[in-house]
């Protein structure tokens, strides 16, 4: 082997180790004007990883609708901030922790929650709520039961001790997640009147760079670049790159950080997340247009053998980086000490925009931070424009037409993994710490009462993977439209959105095409609603052994309501009320959606197109309808007691869910239901009960049809879109055939709610034999 060959082999090994490609290597050498040396390799590896640099998505993210009058802070900071008026503001963001959660479910999920919480309190907002969006594979898939158990324990194991309530969530099952689960965590924080928003922009030459929180260990080294790779058969070996979280430390860190900010002792602050000290220090300096002198040997270490490269790349949890005026250092140190934490000056801010990294007095490198933060490559990955013909969905046919078949379909839907109760999950989460929870995981909208103004902050997660399998553009639009309607159905005005774009390998054209199509759908609905996307992250390479996940742009939508009193429930609460169906039919599917185990059909099983403007108009009028009425309007009383947006498994499933929770029955008129849905005339009645029509909303109210229609019209709604289809009554789910003839082939459904509730409650333990709990009836 000649010298050139040996050099080349060495270079190839280096590139492999640092997960960089040849063109990126050439780009680095060009920017530096020389070959990278020593720790520079590690710096570029971390900062130019997909996870940190967004190199495949940035070109598309630039066009996102991300501003409105309410938006105080959008992308570019740790989280977005929205102004609620009255001096109250909220910061929120959703983030993925998919790869670590598949490898080590408990730790992956805990650090996912810990990381997103730090993004929030880094800005000076006290975290007030957590929400989790989870996609698992089939229950019978290899390791899946253990993964589900570990992830759920992990979320609770972190969220509960830190004292932030988990108030809503969404859990999906599909074979495409068998070997690549999704764990997306959202956190919301509140700034009360007078509380300042802190940013990460470093300022003030001569100020100190202060490290605070937990000591640095070897965990998570190369985590960011690991998260930017597809999984192969050897994903188990990536276990050492998993971080370990400690919620006790985080709780102390929250209190200490909020106190130093309240006392105005810090100039800038940023948490050490992906790529740890490297990304936090380089981003802070780059944003401020300043430099840092950093003494890596002053970083508190868990083990003394750690080398500079490990210290730079470690993703040890519960650590913060702050810029502090020298005169305030002793106060900062004392305050952290009171909370049992260390705060150590490890460097200083310099005027020249250069990062100087030192190790025991030796200069390791001297580099312009912008080379890493601003000059990362930006790829225009090839994609094909969206065409509305890509309708591929996994859809099951309804067995038959008779009342017995309807009953069987209902029971199947309620007891399937997709349709059964999630109580096993959310009863392990503290949903009420903070004493501000006005609606918890039992409801379709999680609600926190804002202490000072008494207003309600509503949080809903979105993205229905079955819609994404149907069509990426419609699915992306639905990912905000559906939760926005859920908010509106409880009287909340949707204000802003955070998104977590979970996709497969962006180097594959179909994946990139679905990414672009989903973003166009998201963008359309956000613009129509004037609910900008203010934060989020992109998770590519959700692919194992060449098979990608369902493209899954999960979202968190935040809304505001004038009060938390007279909030409509998601289940029937009173007998003797009218049951209405509000309709905006734009997209129809045939067959029951959302099943986990059915064969994949490739036929065009859906038709129609979602229209953002029309949906936004419905959101506005629906919100005003459900906000509540009364002499001290708004919302001192409410004629509407319950609402539910019809989703998976269609109208039949939605009605059953509303009835079984509080054992309040419903009598549905078959003729009135059919008259309300003339567009489904060609379907059998049984099929029409389980197909999905986007969008339909169920409303239970004491009002007459005329009164409700008049009120809806006064709010700009189309009165003809409201239909009376039944009443709440007794303890059975009854469909009145409307025919006096006993020979009616479809007969009359009449089923005891307890029977349906047993199906709904037992579905989980049937799917997961070792994951059950004793129920008290």
């Amino acid at each position, binding site marked *: 082997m000649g010298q050139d060959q040996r050099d080349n082999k060495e270079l190839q090994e280096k590139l492999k180790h640092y997960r960089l490609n040849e063109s990126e290597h050439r780009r680095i050498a060009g920017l530096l004007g020389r070959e990278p040396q020593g720790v520079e390799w590690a710096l570029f590896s971390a900062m130019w990883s997909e996870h940190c640099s967004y190199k495949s998505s940035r070109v598309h993210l630039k066009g996102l609708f991300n501003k409105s009058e309410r938006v105080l802070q959008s992308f570019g900071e740790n989280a977005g901030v929205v102004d609620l008026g009255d001096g109250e503001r909220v910061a929120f963001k959703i983030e993925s922790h998919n790869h670590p959660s598949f490898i080590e479910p408990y730790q992956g999920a805990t650090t996912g929650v810990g990381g997103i919480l730090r993004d929030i309190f880094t800005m000076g907002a006290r975290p007030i709520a957590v929400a989790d969006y989870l996609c698992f594979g089939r229950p019978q898939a290899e390791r899946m039961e253990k993964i589900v158990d570990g992830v759920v324990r992990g979320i609770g194991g972190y969220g*509960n001790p830190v004292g932030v309530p988990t108030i809503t969530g969404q859990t999906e099952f599909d074979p495409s997640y068998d070997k690549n689960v999704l764990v997306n965590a959202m956190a919301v924080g509140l700034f009360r009147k007078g509380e300042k928003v802190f940013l990460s922009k470093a300022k003030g030459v001569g100020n100190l760079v202060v490290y605070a929180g937990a000591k640095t260990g070897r965990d998570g080294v190369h985590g960011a670049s690991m998260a930017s790779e597809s999984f192969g058969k050897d994903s188990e070996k990536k276990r050492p790159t998993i971080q370990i979280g400690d*919620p006790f430390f985080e709780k102390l860190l929250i209190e200490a950080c909020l106190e130093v900010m309240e006392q105005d002792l810090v100039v800038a602050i940023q948490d050490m997340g992906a790529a740890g000290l490297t990304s936090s220090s380089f981003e802070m300096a780059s944003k401020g247009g300043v430099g840092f002198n950093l003494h890596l040997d002053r970083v508190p270490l868990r083990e003394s053998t750690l080398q500079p490269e490990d210290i730079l790349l470690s993703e040890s949890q519960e650590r913060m980086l702050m810029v502090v005026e020298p005169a305030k250092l002793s106060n900062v140190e004392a305050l952290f000490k009171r909370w049992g934490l260390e705060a150590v000056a490890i460097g200083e801010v310099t005027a020249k925009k250069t990062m100087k990294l030192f190790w025991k007095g030796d200069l390791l490198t001297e580099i312009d931070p912008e080379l890493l933060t601003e000059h990362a490559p930006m790829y225009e990955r090839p994609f094909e424009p969206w065409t509305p013909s890509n309708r591929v969905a996994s859809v099951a046919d309804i067995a038959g037409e008779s009342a017995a078949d309807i009953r069987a379909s209902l029971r199947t839907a309620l007891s399937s993994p997709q349709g059964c109760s999630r109580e096993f999950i959310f009863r*392990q989460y*503290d949903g*009420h710490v903070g004493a501000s929870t006005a609606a918890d995981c039992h409801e379709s909208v999680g609600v926190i*009462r804002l202490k000072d103004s008494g207003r309600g902050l509503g949080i809903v997660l979105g993205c229905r993977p079955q819609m994404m399998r149907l069509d990426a553009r419609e699915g992306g639009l639905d990912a905000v439209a559906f939760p926005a309607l859920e908010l509106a159905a409880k009287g909340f005005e949707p204000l802003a959105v955070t998104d977590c774009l979970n996709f497969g390998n962006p180097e594959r054209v179909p994946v990139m095409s679905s990414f672009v199509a989903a973003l166009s759908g998201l963008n359309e609905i956000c613009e129509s609603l004037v609910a900008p996307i203010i934060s989020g992250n992109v998770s590519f390479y959700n692919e194992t052994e060449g098979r990608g996940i369902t493209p899954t742009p999960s979202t968190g939508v935040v809304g505001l309501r004038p009060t938390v009193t007279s909030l409509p429930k998601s289940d029937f609460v009173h007998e003797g009320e009218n049951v209405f169906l509000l309709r905006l039919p734009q997209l129809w599917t045939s067959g029951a959606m959302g099943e986990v185990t059915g064969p994949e059909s490739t036929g065009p099983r859906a038709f129609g197109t979602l229209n953002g403007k029309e949906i936004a108009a419905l959101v506005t009028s629906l919100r005003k309808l459900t906000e509540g009425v009364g002499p001290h309007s708004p919302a001192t009383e409410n004629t509407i007691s319950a609402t539910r947006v019809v989703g998976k498994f269609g109208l039949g499933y939605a009605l059953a869910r509303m009835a079984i929770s509080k054992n309040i029955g419903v009598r549905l008129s078959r003729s009135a239901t059919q008259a309300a849905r003339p567009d489904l005339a060609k379907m059998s009645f049984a099929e029409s009960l389980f197909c999905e029509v986007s969008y339909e909303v169920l409303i239970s109210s004491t009002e007459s049809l005329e009164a409700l229609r008049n009120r809806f019209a006064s709010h700009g709604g189309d009165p003809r879109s409201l239909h009376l289809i039944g009443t709440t009554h007794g303890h059975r789910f009854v469909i009145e055939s409307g025919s006096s003839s006993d020979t009616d082939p479809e007969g009359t459904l009449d089923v005891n709610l307890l029977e349906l509730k047993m199906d709904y409650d037992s579905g989980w333990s049937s799917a997961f034999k070792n994951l059950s709990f004793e129920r008290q009836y």
Partner: protein
Amino acid sequence: MAKAKVGVVRFPGTNCDRDVFEAVGLSGAEPIWLWHEDLFDSAQFSALILPGGFSYGDYLRSGALAARAVAMKSVREAAVRGTPILGICNGFQILCEARLLPGALVRNTGRRFIDSWVDLKKVGSRTVFGGSLPSGSGIRIPIAHADGRFVIDDSGLNELRDRDQIWLEYQANPNGSIAAIAGVTNENGNVAGLMPHPERAFHEWMGGTDGRRLLEIWS
């Protein structure tokens, strides 16, 4: 008339401290922060509350480290003095670990954390907390714990019964507690502990107001 002063003790990892502080204020008393590292003059306080949470991250055992904190010396003094002391959730665990209350709290039989509203029945009347409620009253408030199973040996249980120290019982036992015990008092009746969270049931919008019936003793 000056409001009754109620001390709210904070340990590192306590996470219901602010909730309890607010609830005490709503109950007509003046809440005052007490810090785990500091001794305090127990004579100053009409009552003390140890809120829930995960003091010291539940390391070793729930409540074990907090029971040995400096402030607990003053809490003991107050207990001897006869000051009403209430431990909620982790606060109950701490009082058991400090031997100010009988028995111990161990992992739920289901071995998992449980967040749920529960129905309670008031049994004993030794404590001033909820003192105006007749025995047998139903109380509905939430629980949120992993280590909430109350255990005690047979003779201890008999003593609790004989001395009317069983304060609250679950109507449907969620965690495997012996005799479905949700709350107990000490022999003297001034120290009480319960696993459910009264501060989370103070307003209709929370889902119920029964928590007030236990804490509103100063209005």
